[in-house]
């Protein structure tokens, strides 16, 4: 049992790449669910929009990196928000859930379809679009940084990721203190009351959906840059619920909740993952109980179990308050 490796990986989960990607996605979900009460079960597609916006612009259309940023952070998420929001935001909450999960499935089918291979790269996805990003890196690609945890390119992704994360958290904090943020919370608490005060609830919900989607797209784009590939497999439906667990764990409707939740979640997931891998490799784990391929499936089961237990027993998460509890009926 390699305890050094286990501790290192757990720590990596706490501050590393996965935490940044899913922290951003969870902040987006917090915008949707925590502040506005929208049940978005398709955050993975917003992440995919960021990833595919950049990679299709650069690798398929041959545009430069900056057009890719525009496409991935602004254009694609706004189109998606319109597709999901326009039909459902006037309806009861669960219709948005159904449509968003349906859109994730559409994304999977379309992105994997061989007939669109020259646009999306089908199941292999797209590569070679992040060169400009790494050209700006101040780190030496051969060196190891931060107590030897990250190599140069990873360190650059993490540095940028932390800065983006800090900016987004700051922006959300300011927005939620503004009159605009108060309208969102009013809609969450009682949509009819907000409407009777002359607020256009539909339009505010639309804005929240789009803005949270943009945060998700930032996370997805960083993920594509970090792995240097945009693959459908990285943005399947179940990916959404990693962000959901991060959000509920940290506490919905709290600005810092999703960030803390993502850090704790990835520390736990990385710990179990590497611990189980070590156990299997050392032969501690009997073969009938778990094999190497099955280890990768455990994290999904943990996500499912965490959603069930959190929703049933601690819907306010670690930091949320029961009064502003976000898993309530509205």
């Amino acid at each position: 049992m390699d305890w050094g490796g286990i501790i290192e990986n757990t720590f990596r989960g706490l501050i590393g790449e996965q935490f940044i990607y899913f922290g951003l996605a969870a902040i987006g979900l917090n915008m949707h669910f925590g502040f506005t009460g929208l049940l978005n079960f398709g955050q993975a597609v917003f992440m995919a929009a960021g990833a595919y916006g950049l990679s299709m612009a650069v690798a398929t259309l041959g545009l430069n990196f900056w057009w890719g940023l525009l496409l991935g952070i602004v254009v694609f998420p706004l189109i998606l928000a319109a597709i999901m929001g326009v039909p459902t935001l006037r309806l009861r909450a669960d219709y948005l859930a159904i449509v968003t999960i349906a859109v994730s499935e559409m994304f999977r089918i379309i992105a994997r379809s061989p007939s669109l291979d020259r646009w999306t790269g089908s199941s292999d996805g797209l590569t070679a679009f992040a060169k400009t990003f790494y050209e700006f890196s101040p780190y030496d690609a051969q060196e190891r940084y931060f107590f030897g945890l990250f190599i140069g390119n990873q360190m650059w992704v993490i540095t940028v990721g932390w800065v983006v994360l800090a900016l987004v958290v700051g922006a959300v904090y300011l927005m939620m203190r503004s009159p605009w943020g108060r309208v969102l919370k009013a809609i969450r608490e009682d949509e009819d009351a907000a409407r009777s005060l002359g607020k256009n609830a539909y339009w505010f919900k639309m804005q929240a959906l789009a803005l949270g989607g943009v945060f998700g797209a930032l996370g997805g784009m960083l993920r594509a840059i970090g792995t240097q590939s945009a693959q459908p497999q990285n943005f399947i439906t179940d990916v959404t619920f990693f962000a959901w667990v991060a959000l509920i764990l940290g506490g919905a409707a709290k600005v810092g909740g999703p960030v803390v939740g993502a850090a704790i979640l990835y520390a736990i997931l990385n710990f179990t993952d590497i611990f189980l891998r070590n156990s299997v490799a050392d032969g501690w784990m009997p073969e009938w109980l778990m094999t190497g391929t099955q280890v990768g499936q455990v994290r999904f089961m943990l996500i499912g179990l965490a959603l069930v237990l959190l929703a049933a027993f601690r819907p306010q998460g670690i930091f949320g308050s029961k009064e502003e509890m976000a898993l309530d009926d509205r």
Partner: protein
Amino acid sequence: MSHRPVSERRVHPVTSVLRTFFAAVIAVLAIAALAPAVASAQTDDAEVKGRLQARDAEGERVGVAGVEFIATNEAGDEVARGVSDDEGNWSITLPPGTYQVLLDVETLPDGRELRNPEKNPAEVRLIGGDSKSALFPLGEAVASTSSEIEFVQLTVDGLKLGLVIAMCAIGLSLIYGTTGLTNFAHGEAVTFGAVMAYLLNVTGVFGVRIHLLIAAPLVLVISGAAGWAFNRGVWFPMRRRGASLISALVMSIGFSILFRYLILYQFGGRAKRLSDYQLQTAWDLGWFRLLPKDLVIMVVSIVVLLGVGIGLQTTRVGKAMRAVSDNRDLAESSGIDVERVIRWVWVAGTALAGFGGVLFATTESINWEMGFRILLLMFAGVTLGGLGTAYGALFGSIIVGLFIQLSTLVIPTDMKNVGALVMLVVILLVRPQGLLGRKERVG
């Protein structure tokens, strides 16, 4: 989450929920543990494999998925099967020996034919630890015979798909109607049924394989029992606590993920097939071709759906179900035992979904994700017909099935489900209450 006053509680609800929840989890694990033989591991075996490719409309090579390969030994007995994946790759693991590997022409997509039909089956000789390739080149895509004939064929296929989706979806709609819960874990009931059929039919119980005709009603009963347990162990305590619908919704998606990956963990990622009724010759009926088993599936689902309809219309519990769906409070105050009705809805809905899973397993392969894919088609059907209405679910699902199959006239077959999902979005845009729903349900 709203809480009732403490005085109303008999047992501390958290303890009770915890207890029943873990009982449910243990039950699921126990069922899963019954199937260790499913994930088989061979040691000294050889493998025959290949990559099935064809040219698409633009002349690019693409993999052909879902085609079945059957290996028979020298005595002529079937030994093993394999199915090609999305990239067209397939492989069959076999003990050393000489085999005939047959490409099941029935499973080729429409318009694809073997270039050398006389070389099917191919003979392969395998020694231990070997890996050999068997090639089955496909010819150019054959132009479809005539558009009317294709249209009729797709309509028949779509009707079959729609009927099976409807059987699965009735439970989803009734559960929504009586409890207000959009149950995202309903798709896993379909997978559960298919996997149970595989366990009984292929793995066998105590070494005895049960014929599909006996296994199917058994699965109906097992699924119904699972539905009862799921309601008793999880949803009944949650209702008693007065849990909000949103938290119930999030729980159901959590259960969906948990069950799906438990099935993957135990059943493995490869698609598998039942052993009965796999190889059949289609009847050529002039306008369309029909496999005997497809006719049986259509007749069985029509009979079951009619039975459900008559049951809802005439029996006491059926009338009570409709009453609770219409107006829960009114039903309760007129003396209907609402909890009892909800229990019946869970049992019947899950049993029908599991049975639908068996029907899917008879025509297609079984895999751990099938229920989730079907769930989205169910949502499309149920929303189209009107969420919460039993007949709406039936009606909407059949339209969805037809739409999926007929859309392949215009869009590539591998994207056919997209059509149904687009329809889901469009129907919410123009008529959110669905075709048979009433306006105030949506609000």
